[in-house]
């Protein structure tokens, strides 16, 4: 989508500013309170979110909840210092109080004059809609009940089905002393199905889900409830037959799409600007160096239409963009917010994100993807004598300083003599980011994005993210199974 932002300002202004009696002049006044002596940048972040969740268990939607949250966060920066305060009231008094509190981070110094506020021009990456309003309550419940019916009909071993439908309608407005004024209306929906199967005294689980920045009605129109229900049952039945995973170092083939969590953990976090400015990342000071095999190109792309991690503008008002991180194996970029970009003499890359107005901004990923290569996925598997083929994962974690990362397979198979054979139990894979990326030896031609399920946690803040990659082969990684 390349429509220039049009009506999001009217929406944001009506929902965020007008109820508390604020207008453009009060934004300038608010910034002036946050721009005390010695402060070189300040911003105001107004946000309101409407969150809805419907949960089905035992064939009935027995639980549903709705929440409304909103407020304003005020940040004052002085060199490397950050002062931060917030209020869940949006009115002139709150702006005075939070502004004064935030700017107390600096006690003395020059008084800078805020630049004149100018609306940011940015392409929209999703429709600025309320995703909750498109379907009636009955239609939302019907979608979950369909997931339940399909899952139970798929196999007699299915003993439990739970399904959930969530939607978030988020409206934000950010204005800053560098003249930025930006607004965004961000829809986010997700449908998830989990099942338990039992057979011959054994029980296993399977789950599937997805969504993105669009209306709930699209989930219904695309029939995802049925699709995810079948896939969850399929995965659970596969796991019911799983044998112990091997233990030790071996080659691994990662399926396309969601296994891109590899990139998120192995390189993504390590390329966030704050860790590199502080020198605490194992990738610090390595711009221009080869950090991955030739052929590996990784980008962080906020511009993908309707994707879970996409942003028309980030939480500092910088337009979302596609930022090259690794090009043909060479480290070429970091993900930046304004603070870290300024301190490192770089440009912001539209990666400033925060969980809410009550959290401080940090450089964060959006949709982190590896671009397609030339290898045929079948040939990639056929090239492995003994190893693992992993297609789905639970979660991961990284220590950005030592570079060690893990991600836990939830659906994986043995590869024996180039053929996919027995499913193996979930196992954690562990490696070192730069080393693992240098062991990428084949890159598939089948790049795919995940279905829209990722949540990234950093310093206690969760934000929605996406990942994507083609089928990949790593020559060696440690597989944490139990079989010798």
């Amino acid at each position, binding site marked *: 989508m390349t429509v220039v932002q049009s009506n999001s300002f009217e929406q944001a202004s009506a929902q965020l500013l007008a109820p508390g009696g604020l207008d453009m002049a009060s934004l300038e006044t608010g910034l002036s309170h946050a721009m005390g002596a010695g402060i070189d940048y300040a911003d105001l972040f107004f946000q309101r979110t409407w969150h809805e969740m419907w949960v089905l268990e035992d064939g009935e939607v*027995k639980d549903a909840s709705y929440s409304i949250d909103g407020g304003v966060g005020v940040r004052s920066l002085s060199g490397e210092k950050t002062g931060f305060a917030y209020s869940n009231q949006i009115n002139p008094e709150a702006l005075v109080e939070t502004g004064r509190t935030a700017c107390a981070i600096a006690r003395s110094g020059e008084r800078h004059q805020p630049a004149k506020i100018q609306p940011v021009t940015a392409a929209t990456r999703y429709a600025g809609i309320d995703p909750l309003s498109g379907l009636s309550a009955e239609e939302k419940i019907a979608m979950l009940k369909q997931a339940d019916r399909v899952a139970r009909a798929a196999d007699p071993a299915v003993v439990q089905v739970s399904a959930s439908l969530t939607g978030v309608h988020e409206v934000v407005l950010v204005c800053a002393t560098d003249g930025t004024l930006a607004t965004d209306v961000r829809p986010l929906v997700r449908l998830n199905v989990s099942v338990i199967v039992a057979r011959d005294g054994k029980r296993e689980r399977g789950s599937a889900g997805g969504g993105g920045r669009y209306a709930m009605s699209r989930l219904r129109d695309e029939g995802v409830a049925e699709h995810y229900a079948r896939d969850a049952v399929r995965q659970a039945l596969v796991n019911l037959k799983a044998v112990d995973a091997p233990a030790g170092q071996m080659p691994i083939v990662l399926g396309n799409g969601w296994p891109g969590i590899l990139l998120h953990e192995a390189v993504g976090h390590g390329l966030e600007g704050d860790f590199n400015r502080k020198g605490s990342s194992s990738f610090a000071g390595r711009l221009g160096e080869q950090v991955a095999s030739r052929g590996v190109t990784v980008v962080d792309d906020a511009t993908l239409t309707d994707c879970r991690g996409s942003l028309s503008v980030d939480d500092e008002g910088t337009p979302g963009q596609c930022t090259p991180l690794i090009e043909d194996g060479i480290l070429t970029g970091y993900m930046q917010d304004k603070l870290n970009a300024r301190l490192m003499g770089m440009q912001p890359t539209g990666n400033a994100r925060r969980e809410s107005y009550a959290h401080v901004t940090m450089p964060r990923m959006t949709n982190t993807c590896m671009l397609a290569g030339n290898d045929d996925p079948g040939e990639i598997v056929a090239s492995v004598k003994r190893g693992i083929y992993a297609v789905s994962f639970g979660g991961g974690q990284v220590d950005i300083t030592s570079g060690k990362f893990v991600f836990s397979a939830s659906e994986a198979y043995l590869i024996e003599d180039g053929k996919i054979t027995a499913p193996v139990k979930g196992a954690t894979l562990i490696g070192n980011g730069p080393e693992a990326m240098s062991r990428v030896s084949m890159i598939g031609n089948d790049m795919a994005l995940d279905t829209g399920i990722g949540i990234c946690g950093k310093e206690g803040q969760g934000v929605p993210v996406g990942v994507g990659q083609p089928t990949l082969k790593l020559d060696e990684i440690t597989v944490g199974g139990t079989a010798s």
Partner: protein
Amino acid sequence: MSQTFDAVEQQTRLEERATAALALAKRLGADACEVGASVDQGIGVGVRLGETESIELSRDQGIGVTVYVGQRKGSASTSDESDASIRAAVEKAVSIARYTGEDAAAGLADAAEMATALPDLDLHHPWALSTDEAVELALRCEAAGRDCEGITNSEGANLSSSEVVSVYANSHGFLGSKRGTRHSLSCLLIAGSGDHMQRDHDYTTARRADALESPETIGRRAAERTLKRLGGECPKTGRFPVLFSPEMARSLVGNLLSSIAGGALYRESSFLCDRLGDTLFPEWFSLGERPQERGGLASSAFDGDGVATRDNVFIDQGRLASYMLSAYSARRLGLSTTGNAGGARNLRIQAPTTPLDALMRQMGTGVLVTEMMGQGLNPVTGDYSRGAAGFWVENGEISHPVEEFTVAGNLESLFSGLVGVGDDIDRRSSTQTGSWLIDSMTIAGQ
């Protein structure tokens, strides 16, 4: 603190709000209802490389209402405590309850189960601390760590202090309130450079400021922990005994508790379904909670349903003696609530303890795990596989740091393979345990 916060006044305000919301829900057609409201206020300061890096003042509040119309349920919450917003939340909850399905187990806990004694558990100890004083303590902490030879960089030191007031009320007439404080100081340091960097941290946390360890202790210990990790090797693959440090053993207790939680049981998503009475641990091992301990980090006289908390014993001489149930999950399972809506509180192990060096000698050759990464547990089967770092132990002595390996097994065999608990009990958490020595797990490394 520079912000004014009168906890007693806040409590009175929340109690009024909760009572009004209950009355409104009744008027709007709820047969039963419950309300939770809370407000917390805090300060957090961060320093890095000897300079102030951040000062954050926080104040969060929210009110949530759950209504029951017959056996149907609806919930709504808002962070805005204005009359109009609370009314909108109650209306929304009632309207949701028109759509949700009948649930025979839905509803408040039985009135007879409500806590009647609400003793003061000595949880509220505000710290009269200015921002400047907070920065000073954090600076002292980081400086003590950076003064240690070999520390090359720092992610800084953080001090935080917060006060929380929370209220739970329901239409049985139950109204319970809590006021509490929590103060913490932590430090994260880096040693080495380039491809050979390591980081580690240390912290202290308490309800009373005078119970915190000194800033210098935390800084120095963070430095020691970081420096000890330099030069880590990847261990060889094989089956070895594993000694989990107290912090790691705590996560194993957490795995056990999530596996005996009512929600996991009625969803059949726990490997401990239908296992009540079975022997899971050696008979010298018991595990229980002390929810009404004075000053405890998780103390409360009532649970999330308003039910009186009690000293549950979950593992009694090795046997699974009780599940961990709320009123709802108990009804789903045909059992009685154990007063655990919201989880277990102040877990304590009852077992003979062994000095850590004796445990290492008992282990002989194996791995001491001091850090784990990733989730790595399949709760349905108990299959366990996590990334780890720690130390190689050879003939009862620490030989060298190890990293980039996994520890794997099944929780059931891990629990039954517990051969000793250390006397190095970590009291910084509501779950207090020493190290755990497990007889054998699979290490995947080289």
